[in-house]
């Protein structure tokens, strides 16, 4: 498990040596909030998708897709919740979000924020301003939110692996699907809606292996496979449980036999 270049390398190296490989890779997960979504009931779940584990997970929401009808309301609520998250040392009780893994990774995520600014996205919430008084040397970055992001910007295309959300306004449902499927990755995607029709269409048409319906982190439980697609996974059989996973860890031997009646007594 690692970034796409590493996963690809391990997969190619392993399989060319006759080994079985499952290689999980990078992700860029789109979260679509339909105008008919139960926003108040879902907002904490949406926030958890973007900022849980400080955004350092392959199922984290990264791009938030809204529509003309609900854009302002979604942004207002998203921003309000994100502002309320407490950043700090994870062993302290009221902390919602911990630091990033390394100074170098923090700098890398900050460089994405800078690229978002230079490409013309509108910075609504700047996580760089967060100061954790008690731990001045920690690798902290607060929740960061960009609005007016377009799909060709670096922050909308590349995996950031940090607490940075990019908001894109879609023209309609068709356009939303187009945006989601434009990604080279296909790890996870979620739709928030009260419409069975949109939910069903989303499942059918979105090219991602883990799909959430009103669930922002579409993490399969242990006895289902963890299913990435496109450049998010290299291999045929996916990690975690599921009947096919058994096949990964075993070989099949087919035995064909016939028995004859002994015409002599063996000694």
């Amino acid at each position: 498990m690692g970034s796409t270049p590493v996963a690809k390398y391990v997969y190619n190296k392993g399989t060319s040596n006759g080994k079985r490989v499952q290689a999980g890779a990078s992700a860029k997960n789109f979260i679509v909030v339909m105008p008919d979504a139960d926003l108040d009931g879902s907002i904490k779940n949406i926030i958890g998708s973007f900022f849980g584990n400080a955004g350092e997970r392959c199922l984290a929401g990264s791009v938030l897709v809204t529509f003309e009808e609900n854009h302002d309301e979604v942004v207002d609520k998203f921003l309000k919740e994100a502002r309320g998250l407490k950043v700090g040392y994870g062993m302290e009780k009221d902390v919602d979000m911990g630091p990033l893994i390394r100074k170098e990774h923090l700098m890398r995520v900050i460089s994405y924020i800078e690229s978002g600014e230079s490409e013309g996205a509108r910075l609504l919430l700047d996580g760089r301003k967060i100061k954790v008084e008690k731990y001045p040397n920690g690798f902290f970055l607060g929740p960061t939110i960009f609005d007016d992001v377009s799909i060709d910007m670096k922050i909308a295309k590349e995996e950031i692996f940090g607490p940075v959300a990019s908001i894109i306004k879609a023209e309609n449902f068709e356009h939303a699907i187009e945006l989601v499927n434009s990604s080279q990755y296909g790890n996870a995607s979620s739709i928030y809606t009260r419409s069975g029709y949109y939910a069903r269409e989303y499942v059918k048409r979105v090219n991602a292996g883990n799909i959430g319906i009103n669930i922002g982190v579409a993490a399969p439980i242990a006895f289902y496979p963890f299913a990435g697609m496109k450049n998010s996974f290299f291999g045929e059989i996916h990690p975690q449980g599921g009947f096919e996973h058994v096949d990964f860890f075993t070989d099949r031997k087919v035995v064909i036999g016939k028995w004859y009646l002994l015409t002599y007594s063996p000694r």
Partner: protein
Amino acid sequence: MVRKIRNFIGNEYVEPRNEGKYEVFNPAFGEVIAKVSESTKEEVDNAIDLAQEAFFKWSETPVPDRIKLLFKLQKLLHDHMDEIAEITTNEHGKTFEESKGDLIRAIQNVESASAATYHSMGVSNKNIANGIDEELIKVPLGVFAIISPFNFPSMIPFWFMPYAIALGNTVIIKPSERTPMTMEYIMVLSVKLGSQRM
């Protein structure tokens, strides 16, 4: 002086030969809390040889006995959840609740893999031709390697390890050099499971 992460091979600690090359941080404090050395080829070869040796015995262990070990492991991880989660928070940075969630998902995979008694069943046809029976059996493969990332130090090795061992294989885990302490501690605990090598 910060300590060096130890290797765990053949149910015991083995001091790595090289000096610590990589630093493990507590990212909330920005402090180095341990060092990880890069294993030499000889050390890796030795681990593979021991895993291969263990495979011959382990693959012959009946599947109900193999999953008894998983039941013990499941309880062990539950009983030590807070300690393991605290280690994860201190080496990774995620909150204590998130670290517990990470471990709970690891435990669910141990539980899921304990269905190996069913999963390992084969299929057969009696009298597929006159007097001829045919059957498909599932056999273990050997030594598996797990290279896991930093972001879920306990969950991701457990996407593979419990299934591999339940089905009769042996495993070598290379945790992320950025978050190796969680698995190091789980291995400390696993000594309590008895003398069987995993």
